[in-house]
């Protein structure tokens, strides 16, 4: 087992290198910042919706390759899909990493499966989850129609 092969698969590195979705949307319908206090990673998500469909989604911020690759995968997976779809992918992604469930992603989110190797590196799981926990907050806000909090501490994911 070599960590470089294990963790830094080409597919993850590609998403990490891609800067396609790394930009701010202004104005955005939803904007949320999330941090992992213990490593200082800090990601902002920007979402535009159009009749229940995520028409645009981008991210910005600072994070390791796992963190930013995961944010990029998020953007790729969700754009053009519904809020419900986003919730489903989110819960499957958490299921895979936290509860060790078999990955089962819709096609547009298939790259997320590459993150499965993280299960062997438990302290890095929070890197991959940062963008998703930030999304979670947005989805809650959409449902409850509340004003978003300024910051989510996502370090102890449930």
């Amino acid at each position, binding site marked *: 087992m070599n960590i470089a092969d294990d963790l830094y698969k080409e597919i993850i590195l590609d998403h990490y290198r891609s800067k396609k979705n790394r930009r701010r949307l202004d104005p955005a319908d939803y904007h949320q910042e999330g941090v992992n206090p213990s490593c200082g990673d800090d990601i902002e998500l920007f979402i535009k919706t159009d009749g229940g469909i995520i028409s645009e989604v981008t991210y910005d911020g600072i994070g390791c390759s796992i963190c930013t690759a995961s944010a990029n995968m998020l953007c790729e997976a969700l754009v053009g899909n519904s809020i419900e779809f986003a919730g489903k992918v989110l819960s499957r992604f958490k299921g895979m990493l936290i509860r060790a469930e078999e990955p089962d992603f819709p096609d547009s989110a298939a790259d997320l499966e590459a993150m499965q190797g993280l299960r062997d590196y438990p302290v890095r799981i929070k890197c991959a989850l940062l963008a998703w926990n930030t999304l979670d907050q947005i989805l809650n806000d959409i449902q409850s129609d509340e004003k978003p909090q300024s910051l989510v501490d996502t370090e*102890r994911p449930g």
Partner: protein
Amino acid sequence: MSRRTVSRTYPIDRIRTEFPILGTTMRGKPLAYLDSGATSLKPQVVVDAELHYLTRISANIHRGVYQLSEEATVRFDEARDSVRQFINAGDEGEVIFTKNATESSNIIAFGWGRKFLKTGDEIITTELEHHANLVPWQQVAAATGAKLLFVPLDPVGRVSPDAVESVVTERTRVMAVTGMSNVTGYMPPLRDIAAIARRAGAVFVVDGAQLVSHHPVDVQSLGCDFLTFSAHKMCGPTGVGALYGRRDLLEAMDPLLYGGDMIVRVGKESATFKGVPDKFESGTPNISGVIGFGAAVRYLQGIGMEAIAGHEQELLAHAVRRVGEVPGVAIYGPVTEQGVAGGVSEPGGILSFNLGDLHPHDVGAVLDGEGVAVRTGFHCAQPMMQFLGVPGTVRASFYLYNTFEEIDRLVDALNKTLEVFS
């Protein structure tokens, strides 16, 4: 209840082999350790858990991207989950690791009491308390203008629900009560007190330093808001304690310590803090100690707290009878009144007594010469001494590894003490 022999299903022989120190001697005599109320002996599994950390992991938790740090973090988190399960807390954020029960009590008093109490508010407590559950509240009362009220005890040092009701007013904000007296072993009726606290809208703080070590505790069914305890009294290492707190209360509180590992962001002028439990765990924790604590509660669970409490009750019944036979002995607390099987439903395994007018130190010293370890003095409970009207007591306290034979040796040593001072 007062059978002469240890229950046949209780694995006392196996248990004794698991504590390395039990094979040793003191002053040339086999060790009879009757001071678990002060601190317990450590089983090999706990020693091994610490040893494994010290010699095979060694790294700091959090923020480490390498395997050893990861392993330390995983084991640390596992320990928190073990402790959470042990007291059936709802989630891991409700279990804070501290350095001892005393720090846990201070976190409550200063983090909650000092922040939320106002002049005229009332704190109810008892004369049974260990100083750890009393002095911090005295300080908070002095700082906030709140008042300390004491539940009147019955003549043998018991707390009745009626007595509690008699001091409750509409200003009652906190009720801080021990789960088990470290002097007499008496266990107040916590469920009744919890119900009274709930009706009064008061926060219910239980000092569990003795209770949690010796009896099954389920914080949810007990209905306490805070519970404090120490690893070293429950087969775990020194330097680790725990604080259970209801999540919403913990979230509203200020921490006692500020520094690393508990912040979200630090600027030059100010900082923002993490959620529970991290907010309360600043600085590098006692990693080997916490890992050992996890091993300790799993060890206790393996034997079963019901079984341990039952074993201690048998030992106590034997001790009450045998020590009671020594000429001139005065036993303190409820156990004297009706015997163990009588009025006291769940007495803890502690026996406090004096021998004639001998000073407890002198008794303890002769016992020491016989290999029998007991504690003497005021047991960090001076108000209880004032209540009992004595400067101190001799205290024998029992735990999962003690035997009837050790109690018999205590009795022989007490008789020898009478000879020495005759």
